[in-house]
């Protein structure tokens, strides 16, 4: 327990140092290039701005978090099911894969405006844009995970007389977990940026993204940096939550034994007729 405590303490100190490093470099850049506050305010000023304007930022942040998280969940779900569906059928895969790649090669910004006209200026458009960015790494990773399931293992399952659904649930589905979380982590880092772009296209509600624009329009660089820091925090937090869920969902990647223990075996007979040792 104390070892765990120490490990946690070390990690916290390291995290604090990492933040300190970012702030240090930031200040150094300002000093070295003699940047004025209108070009780049100091990190301390930016953080102070968040504190001073918390009542302004809070509703904006909630709005952006809503877009980010919902969009992320939708994108993740679509990505997962698409991955599973595509792995189930080679024809479906060949049909869909090129359009998936194209969807990512097309700059979202270019299709965002017609998307907003189609879907309106409310939450839906933002969710679609966020999901658009999130689903792809998920599909690719899930597909990859399913493709990497050993053919021989599937043959073994057949020899065992396995039912298809049970094979899927016991072998194929869990095989997607590790790659799924890799994809989700990438998606989590994209989601905030996507939400900001979604807000830029059209919004009925102000979020941190729209605020970035209005603050920039009045040369309010502190406001811009404050919103940027908050957006970054949203992204990091989402990433950490997903990473933590990944750790919980895939214990075998870090542990050598399962948390749940099997009771030591009693003198049970196995299904085979065991020749009982003569006494």
């Amino acid at each position, binding site marked *: 327990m104390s070892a765990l405590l120490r490990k946690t303490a070390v990690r916290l100190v390291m995290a604090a140092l990492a933040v300190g490093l970012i702030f240090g470099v930031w200040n150094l850049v300002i000093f070295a290039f003699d940047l004025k506050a209108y070009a780049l305010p100091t990190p301390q000023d930016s953080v102070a701005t968040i504190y001073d304007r918390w009542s302004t930022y809070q509703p904006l942040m909630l709005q952006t978090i809503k877009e980010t998280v919902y969009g992320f969940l939708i994108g993740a779900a679509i990505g997962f099911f698409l991955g599973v569906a595509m792995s189930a059928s080679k024809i479906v895969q060949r049909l869909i894969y090129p359009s998936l790649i194209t969807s990512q090669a097309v700059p979202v910004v270019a299709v965002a405006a017609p998307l907003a006209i189609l879907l309106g200026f409310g939450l839906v458009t933002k969710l679609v844009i966020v999901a658009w960015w999130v689903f792809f790494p998920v599909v690719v990773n899930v597909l990859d995970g399913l493709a990497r399931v*050993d053919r*021989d*293992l599937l*043959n*073994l*399952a*057949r*020899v*065992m*007389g*396995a*039912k298809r659904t*049970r*094979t899927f649930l*016991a*072998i194929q589905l*869990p095989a997607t*977990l590790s790659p799924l979380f890799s994809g989700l982590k990438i998606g989590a880092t994209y989601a905030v940026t996507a939400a900001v772009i979604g807000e830029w296209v059209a919004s009925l509600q102000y979020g941190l993204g729209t605020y970035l624009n209005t603050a920039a329009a009045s040369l309010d660089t502190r406001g811009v940096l404050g919103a940027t820091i908050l957006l970054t925090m949203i992204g990091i937090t989402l990433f950490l939550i997903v990473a933590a869920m990944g750790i919980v969902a*895939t*214990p*075998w990647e870090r*542990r*050598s*034994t*399962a948390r*749940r*223990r*099997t*009771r*030591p*075996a*009693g*003198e*049970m*007979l*196995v*299904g*085979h*007729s*065991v*020749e009982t040792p003569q006494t």
Partner: protein
Amino acid sequence: MNGSGPKVVVDDVTVRFDGVLALDELSLEIGRSEFVSIVGPSGSGKSTLFNVVSGLQRPSSGRVLIDGQDVTGETGHVGYMLQKDLLIPWRTVVGNIVLGAALTRGARSRDRAEAAALASRYGLGEFLDHYPHALSGGMRQRVALMRTLALKTDVLLLDEPFGALDSQTRLDMQLWLLSVYEDLEVTILFVTHDVDEAILLSDRVVVLSARPGRIMADLPITLPRPRGLDVLTSPPFMDLKREVLGLLHETPVAASR
């Protein structure tokens, strides 16, 4: 389960892939609780034969009978184990052993208890809750065999199960398999490249020819059981080894019968 006929009958099986003849009218009978090894050069169709017996591969012609029942092209009648352990990384030792139950009707607590008992009995008691990555190669193969045994089919097909292990571990595993086999009433078909292994473990060694696979010889191994390390250096073992090697390399046997 009962009856006095052979346990497994391979009846006139021919397998053709895209015009290539892999097995040519092969017939083989394996008795109850018999341990039969199949040796042969690469491409002699050993694995094809296993795929046919397990039901994964439907033969071009011929039949497979188990306990007199035609099971050609049907899976679920035999246990199967490969050189790759094919353990599932996210399942513990017990979880892997009960895989057969999990894939057919769902693993119950009784299955888990039985798996734990089986594993404990054969030297895996300390590793019941370990994930496969935490086990050595030999341990992993033990788990794979336990998984095969837990299927409770009394025919086991073992396709070079120890082929990937170092020689020391392999010998340990061979002796361990002998003890398991001598404990249980199971019929084992064993594919190997290793002539020593075939003779040490088996009641019969079947030598297959290069493609198309035909039976070149079917040698009874009458070494007494239980067998131990000393068998490997005994004169009858040496004679058998010379004979099998001669067949495999098509040099006439200067038999010192």
